[in-house]
């Protein structure tokens, strides 16, 4: 690590005692000092340095006992909204939104998916009609995690249905406290409601909260999604995650072991370990500035391994695998994929190959962008959206 940067952190901590300050004041000061995300520009929480330096900065703050910005509470904001606002926002938008986003004062959610626009995200039907200096938005969004806690949303809406689907969309920053926004919990197969449906009825968005040009929504949304897809997870220890849970059960319950389950567990141990090494290698490539869409394969493997491991665990537990913790409809504050019981893990893991891009879509992406195989025949590519089959 850059010794100048280290010194800057040390100086900041000397001037700001985390134990003596209000949490939010400390975070705001850290943002203003450019130590929030060092790869962001000066004036917007950063210093224009390499992203690879950030983990060390975070470590220094952690070691000093400083509060963090609770990244788990605002993943959409930090991971998707912030880089998109940075790339496409006006100075006014960056000034208004980035600081409270980073400090966690304003949590964000994502209003992209719709019942008719899942894998085919460019098929969004939610309309935004211009009315003077505002846009009037009507439609239904789905699979919105954290909508009930969010202050703002990134929103994709159709502004011109006479154009082919990819060209008639615009990207907005939507205030979730608008009276036209109705958030309803969406119950899942696990019994709980981690996600929401969001109904938008005459929601009025100032034109100043449009991100990018009118009709440029697809381009902006893709920038957002690329931030999602290249996220290849953190460096992980051996046997972390789902494997650790199952391996513990295996070690603690010799009575449950059978040769069949043993070989399956060992295969999955190998798969998970190799996936871990593959992730390490990809991160090393990224650090050397060789990122690429091959990161998509990580999510494919993660989903498959999590599903097979959790399925195996239910079988391994046998009689106990027939139990379930609780079917009560709750809205979990925090989703722990490895939490609760084996049945929960089994059911929840089914979502791993659907959310954030289905495994089918990811395989298309790998085949076309990495291997260069021909794309699918696109019947709806060049016809007005309103005339295409829905």
């Amino acid at each position: 690590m850059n010794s100048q940067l280290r010194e800057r952190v040390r100086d900041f901590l000397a001037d700001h005692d985390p134990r003596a300050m209000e949490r939010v004041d400390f975070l705001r000061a850290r943002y203003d000092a450019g130590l929030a995300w060092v790869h962001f520009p000066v004036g917007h929480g950063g210093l224009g340095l390499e992203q690879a330096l950030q983990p060390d900065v975070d470590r220094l703050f952690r070691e000093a006992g400083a509060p963090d910005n609770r990244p788990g509470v605002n993943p959409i904001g930090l991971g998707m909204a912030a880089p998109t606002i940075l790339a496409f926002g006006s100075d006014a938008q960056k000034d208004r939104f980035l600081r409270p986003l980073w400090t966690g004062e304003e949590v964000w959610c994502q209003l992209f998916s719709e019942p008719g626009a899942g894998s085919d995200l460019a098929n969004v039907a939610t309309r935004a009609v211009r009315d003077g200096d505002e846009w009037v938005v009507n439609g239904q969004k789905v699979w919105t995690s954290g909508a009930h806690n969010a202050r703002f949303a990134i929103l994709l809406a159709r502004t011109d249905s006479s154009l082919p689907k990819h060209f008639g969309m615009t990207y907005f920053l939507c205030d979730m406290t608008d009276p036209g926004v109705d958030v309803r919990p969406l119950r899942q197969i696990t019994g709980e409601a981690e996600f929401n449906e969001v109904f938008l009825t005459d929601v009025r968005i100032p034109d100043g909260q449009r991100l990018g040009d009118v009709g440029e929504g697809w381009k902006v949304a893709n920038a957002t999604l690329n931030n999602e897809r290249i996220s290849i997870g953190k460096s992980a220890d051996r046997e972390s995650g789902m494997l650790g849970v199952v391996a513990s059960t295996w070690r603690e319950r010799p009575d449950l072991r059978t040769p069949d389950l043993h070989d399956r567990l060992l295969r999955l141990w190998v798969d998970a370990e190799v996936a871990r090494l593959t992730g390490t290698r990809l991160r090393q490539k990224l650090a050397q500035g060789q990122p690429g869409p091959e990161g998509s394969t990580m999510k494919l493997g993660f989903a498959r391994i999590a599903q097979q491991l959790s399925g195996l665990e239910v079988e391994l537990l046998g009689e106990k695998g027939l139990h379930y913790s609780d079917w009560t409809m709750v809205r979990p504050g925090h989703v722990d994929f490895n939490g609760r019981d084996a049945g929960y893990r089994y059911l929840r893991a089914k979502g791993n190959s659907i959310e954030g891009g289905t495994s089918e879509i990811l395989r298309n992406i790998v085949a076309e962008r990495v291997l260069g195989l021909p794309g699918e025949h696109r019947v709806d590519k060049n016809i007005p959206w309103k005339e295409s089959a829905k």
Partner: protein
Amino acid sequence: MSDLDLLYSDIEEDLRGSVRDLLEDRCDSDAVTRMYDGDRTVVESLWKSLTELGLAGLLVPEDRDGQGASAREAAVVLEELGRAAAPVPFLTSSVVATTLLLEGDSDLLAPLATGERTAALLVPWSLAPDAEIPAVSIDDDRLSGTVSTVAGALEADLFLVPVAAGSGLSVYAVEAHEASIVPLVSLDMTRQLADVTVDAAPGEVVVADAEQAVRRALDAGAALLASEQAGVARWCLDTTVAYVKDRKQFGRPVGGFQALKHRLADLYAGVESAAAAARYAAATLAQADPDAPVGASTAQAFNGDVAVLAAEEAVQLHAGIGMTWEHPAHLYLKRAKADQIALGTPGRHRARLAGLVGLPG
């Protein structure tokens, strides 16, 4: 060897039609889903209608108030019950408990056949036919002990209880009201399990020297569970095929995308094979063929996994909507996963086959 008939007779198809009509009428998936929130009202009326069709007595001879049919017909009923994820005690009472009582001369068989009473064999639902059978103890003609994760206990008014009697095993009948029944939050609430405790409960012997009889009852259960699994898998395939024909993305039905077509073709092959495996298990059971245990374990080893695969593919290919509470796919995923463990996992049945067909490890 002359091949057993693996098709359906006209009578069997008629039976299927009646059961399917009734289930379409009285077993809607919303009512079944409500069982997960504790509302079990659908069970009683549905089971009553099914017993009025005489289904509870299919395996019982006519001179004991039954229908004198065979495992073939029971298998057809189970295909339909699986197809509807129906929450009735047919498999536990009319197959497993009934098969066990058929080995004795208990007067309790007749009321089971008519549906007047409902019974459950007190063993863990995960018990394989060749596993050690847990038994309660007996002292002074009173039974005491706990049996965990029993299927069909919540619907039963009569329990058949394996009792350690000297070096062997006897089965006693115990009135359900003599036992303490703790319902369990279960992975499959359409077959909700319970822990059952008897504490110095009175009972009467219904089958003495009963170990082999219990194993045969479990084997009958395993053989016919395969038909339920085939039915679960069939529903998942049919529903998914219909969905992908209808669901459009990128301006065309997603069922036209070749990767999905190939997966569904493979799944179709699996479902057809599961039907054949289940049919063979039922046919060998129906005529007490010496190959029946091989048929049962082959079908369990195969169908347990196919039903899970079919349900997993149904959820995946329905994508978002398949993950929701409002779409019935989750009922089948939970049923399939619980059925995979019921009466022995596929791995357990493969291990049993190793002994049966002479392929030791």
